[in-house]
Each structure stands twice: as structure tokens, then as C-alpha cells.
């Protein structure tokens, strides 16, 4: 385990006193900066040395926002079981930059694929997440390098070293999806095919820890990563893997801070990085996180146990991180499904009614939201919506709200079909009888149709809910810290896959079993539909 725990710095947005807020809002820009600076100096970093004459435009609302995917130690990761405690070289750099500009840092975590869309959507001012400085990315974003690095190909210990990437011809190689290693391997493959040789078979995984795991379990021959990551992983991987090649790719030499295109901002960021470099702060950070340049010293021969560790399993099971993740999963699933049910009941009534414009629009709604993948809907609402409506990039629009919104809409499209079938299954003679007794339409629905439709709709609805409970795991892509996101972050930190996956499984199963039990209990209330049970119970 890493011995370098980060200082207990509050990463949540520091609160300002209302009075100070009022003053800063009214004050002229220079006074605002001075007040903010005074505040920061007094409370956060008494030792801040740099002077910011001019703030880059991505620092606004008095804060520096950061997008990062904390699954890449030692650059950016979660250190310890508290998923909010970010750590690593990147996080230290971001904090230092915030201090440099005398503003608080507001980090946001998300999937790697979500980083650049979030930057474009102005959800954050900068991306620091172990991202390499590359020509392709520079077309759309500006980047300032802060750390030298090199690419490594890693295989299980005992695998012979190779001379070039071409030696991997016909072998399977794993990389993290969203990274540029895939494109680089495609270029290698073009050369291999041109030479009449077999291409390298590529597998992509959403997190770096899964990439490494593929090598450990022997599914792939090697994985491609950065050397810095291996410096950190050596504690977990000692004696299990070895570097087989350090290919010289010019595009993979530097980690960079990415910002939206703006020449002036880039100049200010470059100056900040230069200042920190000159003051020796960057190299101090690199030393702190064990990032040193000697490849061969990385893998000392240390045997790690490969047996299932019950202590880890139980501590994961009882950890507040897992408990919070499971609670979040449960809350978002229940809220989304309740919302879906509430909006789908009138929709179903309308869809069962006469043909109209509204009915056709509802039909279109159902077709679209049942047709589009849920993951795509989540990504669309989180990343694309802010491009059309800037209001969705404000801070109130949290990952929680975005998940609630998209899962409610998505689920309502499925629930409406259940409701429609259930309402249709109620005998029309029931409406006739209620009508003949002088009951109003509302009374008929409330006391005659809904109670009967509920019985028909209940089993498929519980089914939908169980499915939704598991669908919430998709929300990790928009940085909601639900159960699976928590699990992956923990795995990235400790590499104890089996123990953490097992703990997550226990939570999911426990929740699903509870709802199945609930279904049985509720179904017992519908004795009226079952002649045999009704005769024994009602006596």
C-alpha cells in the first residue's frame, strides 16, 4: 500500500462567508482578485509564493474546476476507501495551480471517455488525468506539458523481451479505451499488413486496472501503458509482470494539462508550469509519488498472495464507501422508477385512447427512448445537452440529477408499455358497471381500474425495477459514485479484483433479493384473483 497519504485537504468547495461573497460579487475585478487572494492566503495556503497578475479565463466564479478519471495511479487515483479523497501527481499539480491563481480547486471525477466532452461542455476548466500531449488532441484543445514519460509494453514475468512493436504481430494486446494507444497500434498494424504480417489483436477496457488484469490472468499477451503507472503498480505487481519493450513514440513523451483552445490562457498556464518547474516543485511532486526514471529497478522480486483475501472482502463489505455506493444506487433507482411510473400512467392512458397528435408524439417518445441505448442517453444528457442549453453546465446540474433525469425518461418508455397492457387487460365490463352505478371517470380509475391494473402490472414492474437497479451502474460514466464506480475505484487502488467484485456482487444480490421478497409480500394482497388461495384465506 502506498505510504504517501495526501494531506487532509478539504477538496469540497470551500465555503465563503455570505458577507465576503457579497463584497466579492460587487467589487471591481482587481478588488475581487485581491479579496479572493487574501482569503486564500489566510485560510488555504499561507505559504503561496507565486503572484498571479492575470487569471486565465477557465478560472471563473472564483474557482478552478478540474476533470479527472481517478483510476490511474500514481497520476490520479483514490487513496484509501473514501472515494472523495483524490490523490496523485495530477491532483497535487491541480491543487498547486489553484493555489498559484489563489482560487479553490473543485475537482470532478468521471470516466476517461467523459473527460474531453466535459471540457468542451465547459463543465470544467481543465483536464489533468494522466493524458499525454498528442498532435491529434491539439487540434481541438490546447495542452501544456508537465511531466516526461515513455510508453511501455508489459507482459507476465518470464516473457522474453522484444525489439520492436512489430514483434507483437499476431499477439493480443490490451489498452485502456479512450486512450491513444489504440490508434498507435492501428498504425503499427497498417505497417504489419503492408509487410504481409499478422496484425496485433487489440482489446480495449474502460479502466486501466482491467487492462492490467488481462495480462495477470493470461488472456492477453501484453498491455501498453506509461512507465509512471508501473512505478506505482510495482507494489501490487511486484514479481508478476515485466517490461518487454519501451517503444519510442514521439507522441507519448509528455503528460499535459488540457484546456479549451485559447492562446492567452495557454500562455498563462505555460508560465505557471514554468514557474513551478523552476521552483523545483514539479520534481518534488514526482519524487513524492515515486516517479523516478529507472525502469530496471521497478520490479523487485516480491511475491504477492493470489489467494482470496477474506479480510479485504469483509472490510470492503463493511466499508462506508461501499455502503454509500449501494445507498446511492438504491436511491437513484427508486427515484428514477417512481418518476417513471408517475409520468407513464397518464401517458399509457393517453396512448390507449383515441388517435390524436399527442398520442402520436407519445408514440414517438416511446420509440426513441426505447430505441436508444441507455448509456448513450446518459452521455447525451450529461455531455451534449450543455452544448444546446448552457443552463445544464451550471453547478446545480449534478451527475445525480442528470442520472435521475435520463433514467426516469428512459424507464418511463418501458413502463408505459407495461401500464398500457395492464390497463387494457382490465375487462371493459368493469368500466360499464362503474358507469352504470353513476361513478365519475376519476372514481372509476381510482377505485375500479387502477387496483386491478396494479395486480397485472406488478410482476413486470418489479422486473423492470431490478433491471433498472443494475442499469444505474452505467452512471459511473458521468461520474456518479454509485456501487460499481466505487468498486472500480477501489480495484484501481488495490488491484484486489476478486475481493471487491465479490463485495459488489453481495450488495447487488442483497438488494435484488429484498425486492423479490417485497414482490411476494405484495402479491399476497391480491388473493381476490386466485380462487384457491382466496377460499383458504378469506374463511
Amino acid at each position, binding site marked *: 500500500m502506498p505510504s504517501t497519504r495526501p494531506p487532509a485537504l478539504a477538496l469540497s468547495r470551500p465555503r465563503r462567508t455570505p458577507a465576503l461573497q457579497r463584497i466579492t460579487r460587487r467589487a471591481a475585478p482587481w478588488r475581487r482578485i485581491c479579496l479572493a487572494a487574501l482569503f486564500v492566503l489566510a485560510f488555504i495556503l499561507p505559504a503561496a509564493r507565486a503572484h498571479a497578475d492575470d487569471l486565465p479565463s477557465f478560472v471563473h466564479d472564483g474557482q478552478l474546476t478540474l476533470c479527472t478519471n481517478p483510476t490511474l495511479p500514481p497520476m490520479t487515483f483514490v487513496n484509501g476507501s473514501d472515494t472523495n479523497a483524490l490523490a496523485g501527481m495530477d491532483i497535487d499539480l491541480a491543487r498547486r495551480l489553484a493555489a498559484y491563481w489563489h482560487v479553490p480547486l473543485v475537482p470532478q471525477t468521471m470516466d476517461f471517455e467523459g473527460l474531453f466532452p466535459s471540457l468542451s461542455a465547459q463543465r470544467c476548466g481543465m483536464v489533468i488525468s494522466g493524458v499525454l500531449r498528442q498532435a491529434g488532441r491539439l487540434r481541438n484543445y490546447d495542452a501544456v506539458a508537465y511531466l516526461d514519460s515513455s510508453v511501455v509494453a508489459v507482459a507476465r514475468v518470464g516473457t522474453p523481451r522484444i525489439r520492436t512493436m512489430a514483434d507483437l504481430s499476431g499477439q493480443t494486446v490490451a489498452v485502456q479505451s479512450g486512450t491513444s494507444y489504440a490508434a498507435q497500434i492501428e498504425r503499427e498494424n497498417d505497417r504489419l499488413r503492408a509487410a504481409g504480417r499478422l496484425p496485433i489483436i487489440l482489446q480495449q477496457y474502460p479502466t486501466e486496472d482491467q487492462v492490467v488484469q488481462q495480462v495477470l490472468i493470461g488472456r492477453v499477451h501484453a498491455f501498453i501503458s506509461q512507465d509512471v503507472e508501473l512505478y506505482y503498480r510495482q507494489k501490487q505487481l511486484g514479481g508478476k509482470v515485466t517490461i518487454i519493450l519501451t517503444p519510442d513514440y514521439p507522441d507519448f513523451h509528455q503528460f499535459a494539462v488540457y484546456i479549451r483552445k485559447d492562446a492567452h490562457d495557454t500562455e498563462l498556464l505555460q508560465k505557471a508550469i514554468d514557474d513551478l518547474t523552476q521552483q523545483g516543485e514539479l520534481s518534488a511532486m514526482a519524487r513524492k509519488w515515486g516517479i523516478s526514471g529507472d525502469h530496471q529497478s521497478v520490479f523487485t522480486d516480491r511475491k504477492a498472495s493470489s489467494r482470496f483475501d477474506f479480510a479485504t472482502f469483509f472490510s470492503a463489505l463493511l466499508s462506508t464507501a461501499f455502503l454509500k455506493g449501494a445507498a446511492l444506487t438504491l436511491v437513484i433507482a427508486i427515484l428514477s422508477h417512481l418518476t417513471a411510473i408517475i409520468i407513464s400512467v397518464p401517458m399509457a392512458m393517453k396512448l390507449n385512447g383515441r388517435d390524436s397528435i399527442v398520442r402520436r408524439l407519445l408514440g414517438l417518445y416511446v420509440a426513441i427512448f426505447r430505441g436508444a441505448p441507455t448509456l448513450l442517453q446518459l452521455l447525451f444528457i450529461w455531455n451534449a445537452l450543455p452544448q444546446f442549453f448552457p443552463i445544464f453546465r451550471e453547478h446545480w446540474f449534478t451527475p445525480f440529477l442528470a442520472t435521475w433525469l435520463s433514467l426516469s425518461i428512459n424507464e418511463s418508455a418501458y413502463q408505459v408499455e407495461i401500464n398500457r397492457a395492464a390497463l387494457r387487460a382490465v375487462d371493459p365490463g368493469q368500466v360499464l358497471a362503474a358507469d352504470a352505478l353513476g361513478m365519475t371517470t376519476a372514481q372509476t380509475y381510482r377505485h375500479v381500474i387502477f*387496483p386491478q391494473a396494479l*395486480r397485472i402490472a406488478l410482476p413486470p414492474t418489479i422486473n423492470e425495477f431490478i433491471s433498472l437497479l443494475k442499469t444505474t451502474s452505467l452512471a459511473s460514466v458521468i461520474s456518479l459514485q454509485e456501487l460499481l464506480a466505487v468498486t472500480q475505484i477501489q480495484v484501481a487502488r488495490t488491484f484486489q479484483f476478486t475481493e471487491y467484485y465479490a463485495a459488489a456482487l453481495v450488495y447487488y444480490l442483497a438488494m435484488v433479493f429484498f425486492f423479490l421478497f417485497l414482490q411476494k409480500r405484495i402479491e399476497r394482497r391480491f*388473493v*381476490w*384473483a386466485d380462487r384457491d388461495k*382466496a377460499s383458504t384465506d*378469506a374463511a
Partner: protein
Amino acid sequence: MQLSTSPDPTARISIRGLSKFYKDYLALDRVDLDVRKGERIVVLGPSGSGKSTFIRCLNRIEPHDSGVLMIDGRVIDDRTDLTALRGSVGMVFQNYNLFPHLSVLDNCTLAPRLVRGVGTSDAEATARRYLSQVNIAEQADKFPIQLSGGQQQRVAIARALCMNPEIILFDEPTAALDPESISGIVGIMRDLTEQGITTVCVTHEMGFARHIADRIVFMDRGAVLEITPPEEFFTAPRTERARTFLAQMIRH
């Protein structure tokens, strides 16, 4: 039978020139009829003759398109308070249409409580009285699914009675019942007459019609062809259509 051209406000039900269309299809063709208080009318006719449409117009579950419908001297049209109308004109269906999710007792008390605002204990007392009248008081706490067809139909009648109607419409009440249950229903319908309740009944059961009817209304293609006492209708029908109808009925 020749009726005057204007409706009779002293009759319980008075109908003149009642017509009903389904798009271009003429379902009811200028029906004229007067029904006295406490009278038992049976409507006969082949399938598709408009019998069911006719009685559904009487409680305006199907609104008529032209003609006059008068109940107790009040004209029934689109300005009529439907809640009040349905309270005074009850209905019993071929498939009973009991509410399956409610007990027998709750089936009988639901409408009085919701529509009339009767208190639960009063509604239950009334319900138990009518359930006794139709001889199923002991089934009050069961669900409809636990009852036989005849028992369910008796609950349906009790449910209608709980609204204290002056008229009860029966839409083929015996179609799904065995002969024994049918004779039970005949007895109940006679009791209703003694309470002064007027009944209009659509049926296919000739024996049942003959037993209970004060007058037979024979319909074909939406029009009333004969209104006669049952003895006369079954022995000497006036129209050729009625004769062929009866001949077919006897053959089957």
C-alpha cells in the same frame, strides 16, 4: 298498439321516436314505448336487433341521437345529471361485471359511498339487507371469484338495489346461468315488482321471458315490431318476423 305522438309524463318510462346511429348504421329506428310503474318488460329479438342498445339508452350509457326519452316525466338528454339518472336506473349485466378486487360487501357499498356519500356503516347495513333479500347474506365477505355464476348474478342485483333505483335494466341476466340459477333469478325479479321496481329485461331465454314478462317487446333491425302480453306473443304472434323468430327458437 298505437301510442299518442307526445310522450306520457305519467308513465315511469315514456319513449317516442328514439333513434340511434353508429356512424351510418341505424341501430335504433324510431322506437315508441310506455312502461308503467312496477311493470316487467322483456325485450326479445334476434342477435343484432338492437335490444342491448335499446336498454343502454335508458340509463344513457349509450346516448340516443334523436327522439324523446322521458323517465318519471323528466326528459333525458345531454343536460341530464347522469349521476342522478344512474342512481334511479340501475343495471345488471350478462357477465355480472362485479368488481373482482372487492369483497361482496364492498361491491355493494362502493357506489353508495362514493356517489351518494353514504357513511360506511349505513352502506353496509343497506348492503346486508339486500344481500339477505337475494339469499346470499352469508357470502358477504367473500370475493366474487369464490362464488358460482348464479350467486354472482344475485350479488350484481343486490349491488344495483343498494342505489335504491326505481328501474332496473337487465342485459341478458341469465345467459351464463344454469336452469336452477335462472329460476332463482325469476323469483328475485318478482320480488322487485312487489317493491314497485320497474324492470326492463333483454333475454334469449324464451321460458324465462314467458315466466316474468308483463309485456313482450319484439325488436328486429332496430325497430319495435310488436308489444304484446307473453301469452299472445308466444301463441299468436302478429308479425311474420316474430313467427319465424319463434320457430327458430323452438327448433334450437
